[in-house]
């Protein structure tokens, strides 16, 4: 099995890597590129902890082959803050105590950012359904949903 050379852009950085044909993007990120912010909770697309965006589309990186990223633009949790400036969602998650153990947090933040880009004024129900693929076992989702809705409200005010 020979490796495939992939040229892509991750969080704005031009990136090249070699990967096996059946290697997932998640494994590439974590094991080859040292970007361990995306987490593997299930490996089957059921938990959302590995959420990233590819060309702006929210996906589970465990269900994408590394080879598929050729020419794509990938955004991961590592690229969410702008330098030392946290994304408003990141700030609100800390303020709302929307994380306990924090393992699901990167995936939920990536998914929530994607939600607010698509829908700046989600209802509670819309936020809950959008995030249904991101499992959290600690919080009961209450503070997560509050943090997302509060961020959305702030961003609307600011714009």
């Amino acid at each position: 099995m020979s490796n495939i050379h992939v040229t892509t852009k991750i969080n704005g950085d031009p990136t090249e890597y070699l990967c096996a044909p059946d290697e997932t993007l998640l494994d590439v990120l974590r094991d080859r590129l040292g970007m361990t912010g995306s987490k593997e909770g299930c490996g089957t697309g059921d938990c959302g902890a590995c959420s990233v965006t590819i060309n702006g589309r929210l996906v589970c990186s465990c269900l994408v082959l590394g080879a598929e990223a050729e020419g794509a633009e990938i955004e991961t949790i590592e690229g969410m803050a702008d330098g030392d400036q946290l994304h408003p969602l990141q700030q609100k998650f800390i303020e709302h105590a929307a994380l306990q153990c924090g393992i699901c947090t990167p995936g939920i933040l990536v998914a929530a950012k994607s939600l607010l880009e698509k829908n700046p004024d989600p209802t509670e129900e819309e936020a809950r359904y959008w995030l249904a693929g991101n499992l959290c076992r600690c919080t009961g989702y209450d503070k997560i949903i509050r943090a997302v809705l509060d961020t959305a409200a702030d961003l609307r005010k600011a714009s």
Partner: protein
Amino acid sequence: MALDSKQVLDTQQFKIVGTRPLRPDGIDKVTGKARFGADITAPGMLIGKVLRSPHAHARIKSIDTSAAEAIEGVHAVVTRADFAEITDDDATADVLDNCMAGEKALYDGHAVAAVAASSGHIAKKALKAIKIDYEVLDHVTDVDRAIADGAPVLHEGRADESVPEGSSPNIMARYEFGHGDIDAGLAQADQVIERSYRTEATHQGYIEPHACLAQMSQDGQADLWCCTQGHYMVRNTCAAILGLDQGQLRVTASEIGGGFGGKTTVFLEPVALMLAKKSSRPVKMVMTRSEVLRATGPTASSSVDIRIGMTKDGRITAGFAELRYQGGAYPGSPVEMGSMSAFAPYDLENVKTVGWDVVTNRPKQAAYRAPGAPMAAFAVESAIDELAKGLGLDPLEVRLKNAAREGTKASYGPTYPAIGLEATLRTAKDHPHWTAPLGPNQGRGVACGFWFNFGGDTCVTLNITPDGTVTVSEGNPDIGGSRASMSMMAAEELGIPYNKVRTIVADTGSLGQNEVTDGSRVTFAVGLATIEAARAAKREMCRRVAKVWGIDEDAVEWRDGAVHPTGHNAGSHDPMTLAEIAAIASNTGGPIAGHHEANPEGAGVSFATHMVDTEVDPDTGAVKILRYTVFQDAGKAVHPAYVEGQFQGGATQGIGWALNEEYIYGEDGTLQNAGFLDYRIPVASDLPMIDTVILEIPNPGHPYGVRGVGETSIVPPLAAIANAVSEAAGVRMTDLPMSPPKVLKAMQDK
């Protein structure tokens, strides 16, 4: 002390405790920098993988690893033969057997061999090359079938002395608690209920699979990084299994992605160490989700028979429960905890519980948040609800009438000190939720829950740095914000800002023994040790300043973050702040630190009342949670946001247990739903907001009145939801989970 401790607790004022500062690990966790179990690597590391039994019960006749060993890139293969047998400690011997099967594979997914190879691909290939000759045996996975005549027997002669002669060989222990005379009590009742209840096993469901990285040198020094609730436990257990000195094995806890009791034991760690030993290379092991579900920690499943008598005016005259819990393939289901806690919320003259610990061909159960209590509460609280409704009584009033309070002789024996159950019930009764209108097909349920909490070995070292800031080292993995609460308590005690303290979780080489992060003990016990360590540092700082001022030590006092002169003979001195004292520490005797090592006892029990509204779809049996409110006593909420988080998380896990989570075994004894697709934990769209009401009835056993809060919140929901669903569906639900097919069938059969 001039005031008694209760008065102090009731009146003390806090500056930081009780506020909601940002958690110190927050930025790392929202930016992806935090390093969890699977995020650790080492130069030259190998990948370890485990071969697991496809059979529920099988004798391992032989294992041939030669073909696997011959594969290029394979550096070590491990089977049980590599481990020395443990003969002096049954509990540790069982842990080893669970990590690597000996004579028999006892459940689907039981580890039987492991390999370490230069890549995951090669390791997988090597697993396939291992040849195992199994003699497949009959199996049993159901608790009641396991104790029926003729059931397959897992172990011969493992029952302890409590089990009567002639009992099923799958019964490992028997417990009996209570007082009074059940028959006499039932005779006084106007109505007696007899019911049986069942709950299925659930998994703790932490999102982070087990992971570790081990390395070992030829001289016996070893290092292990892993996600665990207790790295000191990991050290001690692994040292015992591998024959290492505890002092030579350093374990560092990574960030932990959830545990809920499931990471209070070891699974991969001894295997990784053995692979590292055999290969002389670092070995990393990470479980898949399927391995997590097949081979780690589910809770016990239960079968409980209840008899309760009640007078027309709602007084419980007697309560009896017989509880059978299967805890998987080894002794140790938490049935004794269920037996002690079942009737704990009530003041009963006649109460008795009998518990049976049963083994089956399932994974060895691990603790799950208030282990053993939710199933018992489900049975008792369901029966009380049915009795109350049958007698036309208000279920909250009935609970209030029978509620345990200060001076009540608990069902498990002792007399209660001041407790908070009545307060939770009264608050629930006055809450708008209780009187909010319900629509068609909707029902409201309430239930109470109890949990013990404990302390345990704890070490904290608090160092004053030269610039007057503070580091706190503690030995308990931070599973839900405990570094924030430790920093808060240290800052409170020292009178300095919260952000001048940084708390770290130290490795096993840096502190003495620490009990696992369990039993809702950390904010209580580690908090207590942090406060005491800060007090020790303050005493030292007072001594230093007295020396500088040339006055007696008792002529200074610590106040508001500084040492002040006090009394007539102290003279006039400007107060010295912590930073000023720190700056001259080298001149006054050297670095300043405080430390505290103790086994704090007296954690204080905790109670909660939950209230829930549900709606049942009459055509499909689907249940929707409409509204949920938790009322719980926290003693003192150090960081209320994280206390609320514990309440909400426990309630949600209870919702999963009540409605859709279950271990489903096939006829062949294999687990049918070993993935998050069909092991159905609640998702965001399943839930409403979870409202919380924190009550604060200070715990006299803690300087700030703190009580453990983590576990109690999973005790009431099973019954609260069952009571709500039973009302909405018009039929009593006694079998969890209340999945749609079960609810629909119950409605159709009524």
